[in-house]
């Protein structure tokens, strides 16, 4: 068993533990509609976390996803009259393009993406307010039934939650099995080494940021269609949840390590915890403390395990 599999199993164990503890108190955790609701609750942060995770694997981090999702939400509702599918396609492509541009700037300037995307995080939010005329935009009520199919359930899946799972599998496949995906891992694992081995740095950065923005756009558009409205102030909290899901899912902030499937595990660990505590009727501070405590627990455990592994490897090297 590789160390990666081991760590993923440990994370899976944590997720299951959180699930079981809460399921003991909340019957809906093991009912069909309850599981469907849990899946649905993960869609927004999940789709966004896939993209953020990809940029983190590349050794970068896209902080602008929340604003991008809000921007996409407004745009998609405004484009609704042209049909939902064309609107979705246009919005996702446009966001992907913006992301590619952002990636290109980050590559070209050779700048820390965490700095650059703070700028776009602010600017895109402003642009969203401008585009929306600072008002919530709505799908006309007579048309709202057209979006019903997004809430319909097939067994435990709705179209959005199925989209999330399909996207996880797709991006996981992309990241594991394609040249472009492996390049993202390579530049995250060792940028200098990868460059010396002849890997282009530009392409993986652009690809990662483009996917991240496109997915943020998709999440924003899907969620806005489902609710039939979009607020220019929406999706502000999603960044922290997505990053937390990635970190709990084992994506190293230093880059190069982790997997998209791991992100899914991290995501559901958070979802189980937060949904569960809210469903018990606990006040906000409980959710907040529990999330913080979980995150601290995971990163300290990781640091400890990393320390022990390094010590062991060093000891082996010395005795060899």
């Amino acid at each position, binding site marked *: 068993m590789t160390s990666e599999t081991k760590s993923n199993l440990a994370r899976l164990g944590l997720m299951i533990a959180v699930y079981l503890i809460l399921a003991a108190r909340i019957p809906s955790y093991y009912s069909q509609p309850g599981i469907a609701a849990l899946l649905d609750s993960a869609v927004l942060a999940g789709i966004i976390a896939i993209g953020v995770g990809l940029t983190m694997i590349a050794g970068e981090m896209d902080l602008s996803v929340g604003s991008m999702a809000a921007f996409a939400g407004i745009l998609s509702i405004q484009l609704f009259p042209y049909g939902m599918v064309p609107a979705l396609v246009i919005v996702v492509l446009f966001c992907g393009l913006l992301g590619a541009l952002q990636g290109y700037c980050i590559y070209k300037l050779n700048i820390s993406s965490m700095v650059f995307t703070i700028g776009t995080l602010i600017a895109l939010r402003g642009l969203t307010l401008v585009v929306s005329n600072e008002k919530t935009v709505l799908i006309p009520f007579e048309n709202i039934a057209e979006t019903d199919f997004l809430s319909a359930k097939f067994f435990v899946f709705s179209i959005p939650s199925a989209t999330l799972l399909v996207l996880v599998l797709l991006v996981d496949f992309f990241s594991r*099995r394609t040249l472009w995906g492996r390049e993202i*891992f390579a530049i*995250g694992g060792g940028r200098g*080494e990868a460059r*010396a*081995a*002849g890997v282009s740095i530009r392409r993986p950065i652009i690809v990662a940021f483009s996917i991240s923005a496109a997915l943020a756009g998709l999440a924003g558009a899907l969620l806005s269609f489902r609710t039939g409205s979009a607020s220019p102030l929406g999706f502000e909290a999603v960044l922290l949840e997505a990053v937390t899901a990635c970190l709990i899912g084992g994506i190293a902030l230093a880059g*190069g390590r982790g997997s998209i499937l791991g992100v899914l595990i991290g995501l559901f660990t958070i979802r189980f915890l937060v949904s569960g505590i809210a469903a018990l009727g606990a006040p906000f501070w409980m959710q907040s403390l529990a999330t913080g405590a979980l995150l601290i627990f995971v990163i300290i455990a990781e640091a400890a395990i990393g320390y022990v592994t390094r010590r062991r490897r060093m000891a082996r090297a*010395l005795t060899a």
Partner: protein
Amino acid sequence: MLRMSGIVKSYGPTRVLEDVDLAVEAGEVMALMGENGAGKSTLVKILAGIEPADGGTISIDGATVSIRSPGHAQAAGIGYVAQELSIVESLSVAENVFLGDETLGFFRSAASLARRAKPYLARVGLDHIDPLSLAEEHSVAERQLVEIARLLSRKARIAILDEPTAALSETEIVRVKAAVRTLAAEGCAIIYVTHRMPEVFDLTQKVTVLRNGKSFPAVETAGLSIGDLIEAMLGRQLGQMFPPRAAHAGEEILRLDACRASGLKAPVSLSLRRGEILALAGQVGSGAGAVLRMLAGVTPIQSGSVTLEGSAYAPSGIAGSIARKVLYCSDDRKRDGIFAVRSVPENLSAPALSAVSRFGLLSPALEGEHVTRIARQFGLGERFLGRLAGNLSGGNQQKVALGKWIGLDPKILLVEEPTRGVDVGARSEIYNNLRNLADEGLSIIFASSDTQEVLGLADRIASFFHGELVRICNADDVTAESLTRDVTRASEAA
């Protein structure tokens, strides 16, 4: 197959390569040898497309090629294994074999990569390792072999190996040599940069020697004697570069008894006297640097004992050695020797902040005095003091890296490669500075792979090969040839 002729390269006014010629044939292993600073690295970097040449031509199979980037070099079939490896630790071995290779198609599964990597790994003697395991789980030698497997997979026609065995153990070297032979057997022309005599005579067919940026015509290894080779490398001594040695040394200040640490294969016993300069001569990976790192507290002393001025000395960490006034200057000043984005005075006072401050406040007067004293002592002119350390030349950076310790009244100064990347003029200044300090009672241990430096500067010389102390002699009893024999283990090659 490969012919480089009339290669010229300068950094500023410093001419690094003058009219260098080099030729290798397919299936041939050619040793590229020379003293440190002779221009070997620059030459191979030009060939690998990392540095542009100022003049000269490169032709492959008779056709002139222009190499301006690593991509060009790759396209021309040139593979380069640098001293710093290009293995991404968090990727699998198989992926590292094919890293940067876009010819395998867009889709690639771990299993198919592993399957394709297996034969290449087998040819470099890595058939026993799992191609799916992560590179970080393997030793430096194995990673080195993976790099060679990468060259094989790319069907490189010309391979450059830059000191591939520097950090490896004897058994590991055997594996790398075998892999190199495989590479040659495939018809690859190999340029093999090394300092190790046994490898030269064991592995290579021809030797090209560089000296002071000039090349000598290639010679068949078979007809070569070690003496000739060493003479070709060293040439005549540089005149008055080195200051006279100490008239007499003081009492014993430091003693190592059967000490072992990471990087040493056998226990080392040494002693050092006040005002003495002791050289630890050896190539990279010889153990000379390991002794310094152990004394500096960077790596722990695993066994044996160290006595400093009569009391036990076992520093825990670098702060521990500084507390005992044993100060260490590593061989990579950019990494941990200087603060590149800060000014020279700030660098010079960095370790001595307590000494230049009163009640937690920096005293400009004290600091100025401190800085001026070091600057004067180390010949750093007034005009350098306003600059950022990163903007200085290598020589002046090294003066900063060394000089910053002086303010602490050191007892022992440990210096690794005191003049790496330093031009000739600044070298002589640094040697004089070190000698002056020794005359004032400071004891110095330096590790160096530069024969002239060792011979010229040291009072006594301890030579190292492969993690073992070979012998300790007075500098007067050592010649360039005997020293080169010791640190390259020429005895085994003969």
